[in-house]
């Protein structure tokens, strides 16, 4: 168990909702599941909740589903949060 510094990139609608394109998270616990990480992002940016099921996460340029999957994060990893709204 360790704490890490993680870079989060936001794209498209997620960047609009958070108001930032990139931010640094310090003291991210590891190991962490993708669901826990998403919850952590929602605490920082409650408006991300608007994305609901449309959110897509990627870690080290690999897509990850939001669920129990444990992410092995390295210090300074890029984590990408991107999202699109559903087609209306």
């Amino acid at each position: 168990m360790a704490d890490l510094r993680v870079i989060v990139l936001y794209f498209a609608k997620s960047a609009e909702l958070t108001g930032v394109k990139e931010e640094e998270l310090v003291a991210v616990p590891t190991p962490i599941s993708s669901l826990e990480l998403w919850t952590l992002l929602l605490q920082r940016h409650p408006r991300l909740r608007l994305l609901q099921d449309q959110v897509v996460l990627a870690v080290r340029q690999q897509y990850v589903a939001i669920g129990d999957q444990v992410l092995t994060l390295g210090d300074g990893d890029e984590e990408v949060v991107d999202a699109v709204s559903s087609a209306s």
Partner: protein
Amino acid sequence: MTASEEPRNVFKLSRDWLSVQEVVDAVSSASCGAISVFIGTTREDECDGRKVIGLEYEAYELMAQSEFRKLCDDIRARWPTVTHICVHHRLGWVKVSEASVAMAISSPHRHDGQQAIQHCINQLKASVPIWKKEVYDTQEASWKENAE
């Protein structure tokens, strides 16, 4: 194949107007009798009574490159005769009737290339991290699934 005929996978994200000729030239080969091409353009459309005047594209560029390489591997596994693959995608503002994507695939015979180009555009939209925002004549805008 000669050395110059090593299979090429060419991917370019561009803020400029896309040249169809450039995409076609990138895949041309003396060993190929067929070049299949697809061009996606911004369509004049209405959405809830608002008129679409253009699209704004954004990409996670590094990841788009790596997803494109995976897509090329997938295409070559399914259609081994595919020779060269080239995809150019616009970023930023693309107004109605301009091309947002132009792609070409060369193959010795046409059938494989025609199947492969359909798979290429479907998978590009499904897996390559490029997002589009519809911009309306009302000054409003909304991010869209890239699936269409």
